[in-house]
């Protein structure tokens, strides 16, 4: 959500989203306006309080008069914009993207500590992904249990980089980063050292709370026990913004 109006020069615009006439500040993004007005937009990388990433591509919407799609998280509203958020084409694209994620690593819900509390799982259900037509890659990824409180399971990671951003932008530690490229990408702590040996990690646990899946979890949790709480984030983000 956009910050309260502190700058007087921001104009207010009117636009139409899914046949609803709405008003918005011109420095707001489409996803912010949708959330304000309870228009559901699926997203995995975007999180209120963190910088825009634009990587999951699930929030793509159609703009009238434009041939290409726009990511709602990174596109600002404009006067007279006409937006469609849930056409049949978009639904199909979103299902395929979610299927690609399921096939990429080993998201086996029935044995996952986040089962029932997983954003990927919710989205799959909401978007109607009831089976995956794309061949599973079935590559075994490592699990880093070296930290005394938390665990990183690369098999569940969707590379949304929420952990990287919250650690850098909110906690200020920048323990996490991404290494390699393409599907070899991996979240790493410090310079690819085991998490438990990290010099920079403050063990604050913010990364665990913002992780949408069962990739970052608390030690000692069993199937379905890992419930996450992200309420702290908008509050901390605003406090940081105001200071």
């Amino acid at each position, binding site marked *: 959500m956009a910050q309260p109006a502190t700058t007087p020069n921001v104009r207010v615009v009117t636009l139409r989203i899914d046949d609803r006439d709405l008003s918005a500040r011109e420095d707001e993004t489409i996803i912010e306006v949708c959330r304000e007005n309870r228009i559901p937009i699926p997203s995995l990388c975007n999180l209120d309080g963190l910088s*825009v*990433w*634009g*990587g*999951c*591509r699930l929030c*793509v919407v159609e703009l009238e008069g434009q041939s*290409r*799609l726009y*990511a709602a*998280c*990174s*596109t*600002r509203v404009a006067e007279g914009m006409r937006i469609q958020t849930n056409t049949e084409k978009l639904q*199909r*694209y979103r299902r*395929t*993207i979610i299927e*690609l*994620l399921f*096939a*990429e690593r080993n998201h086996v819900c029935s044995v996952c500590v986040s089962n029932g509390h997983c954003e990927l799982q919710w989205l799959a259900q909401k978007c109607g992904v009831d089976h995956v*037509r*794309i*061949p599973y*890659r079935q590559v075994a990824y490592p699990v880093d249990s070296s930290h005394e409180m938390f665990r990183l399971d690369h098999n569940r990671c*969707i*590379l949304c980089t929420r952990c990287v951003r919250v650690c850098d932008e909110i906690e200020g530690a920048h323990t996490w*980063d*991404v290494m*390699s*490229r*393409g*599907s*070899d*990408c991996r979240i790493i702590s410090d310079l690819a050292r085991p998490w438990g040996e990290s010099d920079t990690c403050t063990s604050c646990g913010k990364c665990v709370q913002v992780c949408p899946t069962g990739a970052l979890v608390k030690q000692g949790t069993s199937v379905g026990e890992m419930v996450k709480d992200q309420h702290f984030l908008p509050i901390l983000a605003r406090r940081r913004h105001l200071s």
Partner: protein
Amino acid sequence: MHLEDLAEKAAEYRAEEAAVRREVRVCVAASCQSSGSLPVLEALTNACGDGGGSCRVKGVGCMGLCSAGPLVAVADKDCGLADSVLYRDVTPADAPDILGSVCGAPVERLRCPTDQPFFARQQKIVLENSGIIDPDSFKGYVAVGGYAALVQALSEMTPADVLREVTASGLRGRGGGGYPTGLKWSTVAKTPGVQKYVICNADEGDPGAFMDRAVLESDPHRVLEGMAIAAYAIGANKAYVYVRAEYPLAVERLQTAIRKAKRAGFLGSKVADTQFSFEVEIRLGAGAFVCGEETALMASIEGLRGQPRPRPPYPAESGLWGCPTLINNVESFANIAPIIRNGGDWFAGIGTEKSKGTKVFALAGKIQNTGLIEVPMGTSLRDIIEIIGGGIPDGKAFKAVQTGGPSGGCIPEQHLDIAVDYDSLKTLGTMMGSGGMIVIDETSCMVDVARYFMEFCMTESCGKCIPCRAGTQQMHGLLDKIARGQGTHADLALLEELCEVVQATSLCGLGQTAPNPVLSTLRYFRDEYEEKLAGG
């Protein structure tokens, strides 16, 4: 500095060369070096000795016909020959023969005719000095009229005049997208900002493309001059050349050029004794193809992980370190000096209605004359491949030509008569790209071609967005399965669906265009896919 002062200087430099009656030019660009031109240069230099000052051997840039390298050109001033004599496949042992040859009696066994279509059908603007001047020589560039456009712009034109000429020229970005250069420049010029930047994108990464490398290796000052004019027009004082580390020779020559231009007062503070200051810094790419994408390139210059960010905001509004930034490709900048010298209308008189000027193409693959050519926009593909390129070697039949590298598509025989420009290629489902042309003959399987380019995109995907990261991998898997004869109709249907999703939803150009080779091979060679499907 006035134009007259520069003209005097140029005349002075030419006078220094007046005693030289015979000039032996040896190509020392990367492709001729790889076929052994440095030993040839050494042998010729030794055999020539000081030549009484009348004979001079010098290294020059690319002469185009890379497949015939090492190339040596001999220009005799006393001789009635209008053009120089060109020799091909020269070895160090040929040095005495070449130097011993007299006017009008060249060494026939080595001779490479310059009246053949490969040379005769070209029109050189970007490559006008390439193969003629010594790329390491500042004097050499000034002697052929170099830096006159910059001095003209600084002393006689306002930034708005420069923008008007560039806009009038109709020049479009040579990096592949074809965005109007004048529009881009004026957008950055109009964006408010105390600090602005100019970036030259020399991260040429398409397989089979080597246009920018040749320009930087053959005529680096021309690129610097274009950048300086751009900086003056948009109000920038700092520029970066982002060049890939795999081009060490280009980097070395660019460094030399920057150093010499700075010493001569054409870079640095008070350029050509005016109030305009302009610094150029080189940044080396670390081997990622995606860093050719402008936002990833800027992230890389900033010292961040080289991955793209969503646009808008475009670099013109928020680019390097959030400042308004002009980013153009090497060849685009190389066109600027002639546009300023001759006027935008002159440039607009060349080419087609919507694509002006010339385009440099790198001919590679199954083609007789591998190398670099520059032709006016609108030249037909058939002329480029069959006449200039000399057709397919070994009596094989032409099958397709891939333009635009891994982001482009293939063009089959039936469309060879199309006039090449940005828009015509788009209608065929491919793109101009930076100018690589890979010719494919009948022995190649188009499924393999698609698989090759998909593998390239898969390994070069930065991994930021899901459709590109996971999608290219899945598409590669399906292509591999089909190529091995194990694919089914369902696999082909899934492949086509993934193509659509990846194209529509990816974050940057790499992912958005990655399906193009598959889509275009499916469009023209669907039968080859279907033949390979299991069960026919």
